[in-house]
């Protein structure tokens, strides 16, 4: 048996924090990939499978016209899913987002069409209504301590009532078909040259940023990624984006609403991951008591998150109304709510709080949007359609679950 006293003394260990040399960092990265900590990859695979299945069932699925439609279709969903992701990060729920989006749509239409407010002003008012609603709900939840489920369930009912009231007798209000709002949501596309430029700029910026960070880390003597990694990612990104853009410009091109949605998703991803505010959301969702003891104002975080969620729901309602060209009593009702939550969850947001994957709302909205869109192309009767939707939804997540499982069995 090894006796440490008779053996040569083990060399004093390099402190563990310095263990990861650049080389080992990649090793570790590949390692985690191997043992399953591979983030959004499984759901992307699920998405690709969905695309393959639908394309083989109906070859129009991947044509340019339909892809542009898909972009238009998921804009509102993606925005709403971004909002609910924030709330889910706290381990809470907001059932009122559908109603709030409907209310915002109603307010937009009434102020713009009936009261003649300028388009932008009307949009602003509608969005602020969302903020107000969220602040109220958040406060009742955080300050009085009513479970968020109940507060927002009450909100679901109340704001739908208010929506009916705002719409009044008329029930349905149309936007001027040639007005700014409809034009923006339905007929505005990024000019081709700009789209191509953006699709080149994004990888470039990514690369630049990665290299700068790399330099700072090296200067601080921290482990760094190997050089080829960001370069490879940037190249792949560049090729992919250019391909997508080329495809979309066979038809109308990239809709501004889609760009807007992507910006929203990216901004909130940055907010969550790269700012102190976002870090606090993670903390509250991870361990609320630890967050409180760290001096975080938990109430403020909660209220602001509910306010943000409702604001985004209102924005989503506004976008949906502009795209539809009208609002009515049904705006925001039905599956709006459940689709948004489902998008967030499919994208990789935990319902238990504190965990979400990068760009979860976008990925989730793509999955849900692709399923809905693909099914529309197959003329199925309602019963079959429901069954198929449910099955495909489940299938898209099973891969993810299986990977996660193998990860747990590897002890994480």
């Amino acid at each position, binding site marked *: 048996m090894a006796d440490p006293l008779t053996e040569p003394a083990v060399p004093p260990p390099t402190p563990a924090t310095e263990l990861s040399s650049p080389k080992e960092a990649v090793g570790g990265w590949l390692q985690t990939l191997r043992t399953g900590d591979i983030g959004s990859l499984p759901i992307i695979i699920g998405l690709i499978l969905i695309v393959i299945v639908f394309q083989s069932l*109906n070859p*129009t699925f991947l*044509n340019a*016209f*339909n892809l542009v*439609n898909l972009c*238009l*279709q998921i804009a509102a969903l993606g925005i709403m899913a971004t909002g609910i992701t924030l709330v889910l990060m706290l381990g809470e729920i907001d059932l009122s987002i559908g109603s709030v989006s409907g209310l915002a749509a109603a307010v937009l239409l009434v102020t713009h069409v009936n009261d003649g407010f300028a388009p932008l002003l009307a949009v602003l008012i509608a969005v602020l209504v969302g903020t107000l609603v969220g602040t109220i709900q958040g406060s009742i939840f955080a300050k009085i301590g009513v479970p968020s489920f109940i507060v927002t369930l009450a909100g679901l009912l109340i704001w739908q009532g208010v929506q*009916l009231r705002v719409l009044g007798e008329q*029930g*349905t209000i*149309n936007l001027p*078909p040639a007005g700014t709002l*409809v034009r923006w949501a*339905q007929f505005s596309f990024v000019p081709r040259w700009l789209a191509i430029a953006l699709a080149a700029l994004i990888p470039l910026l990514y690369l630049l940023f990665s290299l700068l960070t790399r330099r700072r880390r090296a200067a601080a003597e921290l482990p760094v990624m190997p050089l080829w990694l960001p370069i490879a990612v940037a190249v792949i990104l560049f090729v992919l984006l250019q391909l997508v853009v080329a495809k979309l410009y066979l038809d109308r091109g990239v809709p501004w609403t889609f760009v807007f949605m992507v910006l929203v998703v990216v901004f909130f991803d940055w907010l969550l991951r790269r700012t102190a505010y976002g870090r606090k959301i993670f903390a509250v969702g991870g361990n609320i008591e630890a967050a409180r003891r760290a001096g975080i104002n938990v109430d403020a975080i909660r209220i602001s998150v509910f306010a943000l969620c409702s604001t985004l729901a209102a924005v989503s309602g506004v976008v*949906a109304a502009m*795209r*539809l*060209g*009208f609002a*009515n*009593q*049904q705006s925001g*009702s*039905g*599956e709006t709510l459940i689709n948004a939550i489902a998008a967030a969850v499919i994208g990789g947001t935990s319902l238990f709080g504190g965990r979400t994957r990068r760009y979860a709302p976008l990925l989730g909205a793509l999955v849900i949007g692709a399923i*809905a*869109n693909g099914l*529309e*192309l197959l*003329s199925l*009767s*309602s019963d079959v*359609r429901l069954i198929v939707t449910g099955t495909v939804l489940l299938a898209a997540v099973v891969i993810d679950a299986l990977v996660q499982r193998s990860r747990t069995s590897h002890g994480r």
Partner: protein
Amino acid sequence: ESGDSGSKAGGGKIALLLPESQTTRYEQHDRPLFEAKVKQLCPDCEIIYSNAQQDQSRQQQQAEAALNNGAQVLVLDPVDGAAAATIVSLAKSKNVPVISYDRLIQNAPVDYYISFDNERVGQLQGESLVNRLKELGKTSGNIVMINGSPTDNNAKLFNKGAHSALDTSGFKTVPTPDFFTPEWKPENAQKFMEGQIAQLGKDGFVGVYAANDGTAGGAISAMRAAGITPVPPTTGQDAELAAIQRIVGGDQYMTVYKAFKPEAEQAAEVAVALVKGEKPSTDRTVNNGAVDVPSFLLEPQAVTKDNIKQTVVADNLYTVEQICTSTYSAACQAAGLT
């Protein structure tokens, strides 16, 4: 301008966009009838079918998909007639003609309109209810009014038509303001009716206006459970088999039968004509706020115990065997069906 797809010989693609599947008529009647007629008129035509499940934004998505699939005609039954203008303008941008089916698309350059008149349906319900009450020797009293979904625009139209018949009749509709049944759900109608019975008493009303057969069913269950026999005259709509059976059994007074067959077949004829580049003509028009739409309008029919045979049975909607199951055989005999 809608005819440039007609240059193609023979086949073509027709999109049938229906609004919901919660009532049986669309999936069980309109769709098969329409498809059968199209196949008969144009064996090579292909039909793209979608059902919007009561969701206007989904319908828009479906319209986009249909256009994407190469539809040359849209037969569109809008979830919300006031809101479907966007779909029309999208279709117009692709030079695809639009037939407004069953519900009128407002404020848009629609090519044809084929329908029953929704306000007329409400009116018919109201009129036959009043007539029945007068037959029973009642000239005044409360009529409990159960309307459709508060978020369904058609429910408003039924309501409007019904009021036009009831308000001048000497009867009083309760409650005020009008009750609209969330989601058209029978359970909600049942609860509401129970509340009205509690409120008005078991003999506090003389009749029940229910906007469709589902809500009528809920209301009738509530009255029966409260021990109100016979159940006062109750209206309905859609001519569901279950409602016909209730009519035979004496629980429900009437339902409104919209003969889906002529409606669907008419639509099929117009659609096929459009695919072939023809322009069917009609002398009636309906103004939808934007244009005078050339229209084919059909009359809804009231079905009571007395004319089941002449209507739903004659139209092959249901066979006598379907209606007269063992439960209802005695009642059928009494009603002269078997």
